[in-house]
C-alpha cells in the first residue's frame, strides 16, 4: 500500500473507532455527542488540561517509539512494560542516591535508567539468539519479574520512605520539571499570581520528557533510515535468511535491537519518575505503559515520528475520557473500547481497500456486482 493510503486508513480507523465508542454510549443510554463534547473540553478546555494531556502522553509516546523500533527490526517488544519499570527503579535510585549538580543529575539518572532497562531487555535478546526462546514468552515472564522486583526494592530501608508505600523522593537536582524550582519560589509564585494562563499551564507536572520524546523519535527515525546499523537491523527484520546470507550477524543484531528498544522504554520510565512521580510506589498490577505503547506504535503504523501524534491522541483520549465518569456518569472505559477499535481497524487495511473499490466503481457508474 502507498504511504498516502496508509495515512488515510489510519485517519479513517480513528474516526471509525470513535464511532464505535459513540454507538456503545448510545446503546447504553448516554448522549454520545454530549460525551465527546465533555471529552473535547476535558482536553482543550483549559491550558491546564492541555498540559496534563501532554504529561500523560509523554511516557506512552516513548514506549511507543520503543515498540515501533523493535517492530521495524522484526521483534515484538511486549516487554516494554517491564523495561519501563526497570527504568523507573534505577532512575529513582540514581536520582535519590547520587549527589550531582542540577541538569547533569537528571541526565545521569535518565542514562542509568536507560542502561538498566537496556540490559534487562538484552536478556530477552540473548535468550532468543542463544536458546531460540520466543521473545514474547520470555518478555511476559520478565514483565512480572520486573513488577515484583520493583516491590522487592521497596523493602530496602535505604530506599523506602518510612511509613509509606513508596520510595524516597528523588533529589531536586534530579528532577526534570519545566521551571520546577522557579514555580514554587517566591518570585515565581508572585509572577504566576498575575498570569492566569501561565499559572494554569505550569500547574501540572510539566517536564522535559516531552522534549526528550520528540528527540528520541527523530533519533530512532534517523538511525533506522540513515545509518548502517539501522539498515542491518531492518534487514534482519525483513528477511532473516537473506540478511545472514548478506553477511549480517543476526544473533548480535537481535541482542542489539532488544537492548536499544529496552533502553528507550527505560527512558520512558525514567522521565516518568524524574518529571512526574518523583518516586516509585508498590505495584499491584501492571500500569499499562508498555501495552499502551504497543497501541500507540500500531496506530502510528510503527513509524517512530508518527508515535508523537498517535501518543497525543491516546493520551488525550484517556485523559479527556477519564472525565466522562464524574461529569456525565458514563463509564470512562468506553475509551478503551474506542482505542481497541482503532487498533482493530488499523489492522484491517483490506477492509478499507474494499470500501475504496466500491467507492471508485460507484464514481465510474459501474455495476456494483
Amino acid at each position, binding site marked *: 500500500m502507498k504511504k498516502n493510503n496508509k495515512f488515510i486508513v489510519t485517519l479513517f480507523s480513528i474516526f471509525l473507532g470513535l464511532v464505535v465508542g459513540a454507538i456503545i454510549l448510545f446503546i447504553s443510554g448516554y448522549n454520545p455527542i454530549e460525551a465527546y463534547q465533555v471529552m473535547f473540553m476535558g482536553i482543550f478546555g483549559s491550558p491546564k488540561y492541555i498540559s496534563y494531556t501532554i504529561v500523560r502522553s509523554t511516557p506512552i509516546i516513548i514506549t511507543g517509539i520503543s515498540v515501533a523500533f523493535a517492530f521495524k527490526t522484526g521483534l515484538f517488544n511486549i516487554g516494554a512494560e517491564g523495561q519501563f519499570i526497570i527504568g523507573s527503579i534505577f532512575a529513582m535510585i540514581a536520582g535519590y542516591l547520587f549527589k550531582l549538580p542540577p541538569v547533569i543529575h537528571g541526565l545521569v539518572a535518565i542514562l542509568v535508567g536507560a542502561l538498566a532497562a537496556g540490559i534487562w531487555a538484552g536478556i530477552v535478546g540473548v535468550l532468543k539468539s542463544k536458546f531460540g*526462546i520466543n521473545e514474547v514468552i520470555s518478555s*511476559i515472564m*520478565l514483565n512480572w519479574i520486573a513488577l515484583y522486583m520493583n*516491590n522487592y526494592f521497596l523493602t530496602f530501608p535505604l530506599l523506602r520512605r518510612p511509613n509509606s508505600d513508596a520510595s524516597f523522593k528523588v533529589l531536586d537536582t534530579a528532577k526534570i520539571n519545566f521551571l520546577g524550582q522557579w514555580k514554587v519560589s517566591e518570585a515565581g509564585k508572585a509572577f504566576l499570581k498575575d498570569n492566569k494562563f501561565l499559572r494554569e499551564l505550569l500547574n501540572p507536572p510539566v517536564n522535559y520528557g516531552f522534549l526528550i520524546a520528540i528527540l528520541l523519535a527523530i533519533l530512532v527515525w534517523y538511525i533506522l533510515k540513515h545509518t548502517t546499523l539501522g539498515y542491518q537491523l531492518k534487514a534482519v527484520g525483513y528477511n532473516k535468511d537473506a540478511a545472514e546470507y548478506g553477511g549480517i550477524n543476526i544473533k548480535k543484531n537481535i541482542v542489539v535491537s532488544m537492548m536499544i528498544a529496552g533502553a528507550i522504554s527505560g527512558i520512558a520510565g525514567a522521565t516518568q519518575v524524574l518529571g512526574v512521580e518523583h518516586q516509585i510506589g508498590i505495584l499491584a498490577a501492571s500500569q499499562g505503559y508498555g501495552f499502551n505503547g504497543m497501541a500507540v506504535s500500531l496506530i502510528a503504523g510503527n513509524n517512530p515520528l508518527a508515535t508523537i501524534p498517535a501518543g497525543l491522541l491516546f493520551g488525550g483520549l484517556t485523559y479527556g475520557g477519564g472525565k466522562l465518569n464524574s461529569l456525565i456518569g458514563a463509564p470512562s472505559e468506553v475509551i478503551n473500547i474506542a482505542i*481497541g477499535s482503532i487498533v*482493530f481497524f488499523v489492522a484491517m487495511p483490506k477492509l478499507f481497500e474494499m470500501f475504496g473499490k466500491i467507492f471508485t466503481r460507484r464514481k465510474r457508474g459501474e455495476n456494483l456486482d
Partner: protein
Amino acid sequence: MISIINNLGIIIGISLMYSAPLIYTALGGVISENAGVVNIGLEGMMTIGALVGATVGYYSGNPWLAFLAAGIAGGIMAILHGIASITFTADQIVSGIAINFIGPGLALFLSRLFFEGATMTKPIPLDNKMPQPFKNILPEVTQVETIKDAMINFFRNAIFNQYITVFIAFILVFIVWFVLYKTKLGLRIRSVGEHPRAADTLGINVYRIKYIAVILSGVFAGFGGAAMSIAVVANYRATLISGQGFIALAAMIFGKWKPQGAMWACLLFGAAQGIAIYLGGTAIKVPSTLLAMTPYVITLLALIFVVGEGNGPKANGLPYEKNQG
C-alpha cells in the same frame, strides 16, 4: 511426616486451583494456533468470560448457565478476531492486541452498567458458585493425629475439595487431544495450520476451519475466565484477570502447541504459584515479593534448560488468501 503430608495436600490443592483457569485458556490457544491463527487476545477473551460468568451467575443463580454464557461471550470476542485475521487477513498480533484493549474495557463498562457504576460485580453466594462435587466423600478431619488422618486430609485438600471446573479442565485436555489427533476435524485443523494451500487443494474449507478453531479458542478462554470468577473467587473485579491470558499463551508455546504439553506447563506454573502462596503463609523467612516472583523465574529457567527451541505450526500467524499465487 504428618505435617509434610498435610502441607503437600494444601500445596497441590492451591496449585490445581490456579492451574485450571490457565488450562482452559491455554487449550484455546492450542486450538487456534494449530489452525494457524495466533491468538494473543486470549487475555481479553478471558476477561469478558470472567465478567459475563460473574454477572450471569449473580443474576440467575445458576453456575452452569453462567459458565456457558462465559464461553459464548468469549466466542463472540473471538469472532471479532476471526473477522479481522481470517477474512480481512489482518496482522494477527495486532488484532489480538486490539482484543486485549476491547475485552477489559468492555468488561468494566458492562460491570458499571449492570452493577450501578461499580467496577466489581456483586459476590455470588457460596451455594450458587460452581459445585465441589466430591467434597463430602471423605470425612472431615478436625484434628490430625495419625498418618491416616493426614492422608485423608491430603486427599481432601489436594483433590476432593476442588471445584468441578478443575476436573472439567483435565477432561477437556483429553478431549482436545483426542479431537486434534484422532479425528478428521483435528487433522483438518492441523493441516490448515501447517500448509493451508495443500489443505485447500484437498477440498478443505480453510476459512471455515480457521473460524471454527478461533471461535473455539474464545469459548475456552471464556471458560477460563469463568473458572476464575465463579470458582476460584465469587465475583469479577478489574484486577481479577491480570496476566493469566498471557501466562496461558506462554504455557501453550512452552507446551509446544500440544494440549498435553500446555497442561503440564500450566501445572508447573500453578505449582510454582501454590508453593509461593503456601510459603507466604508460613514462618519461613522469605520476602513475599521474592516469592511472588518465583513462578515466573521458574518458568523462565525451565524454558532455558528444559524446553529450548520450540517450533509451532508452520503456517502459524500467516494470513491465508485463497486466490493468491
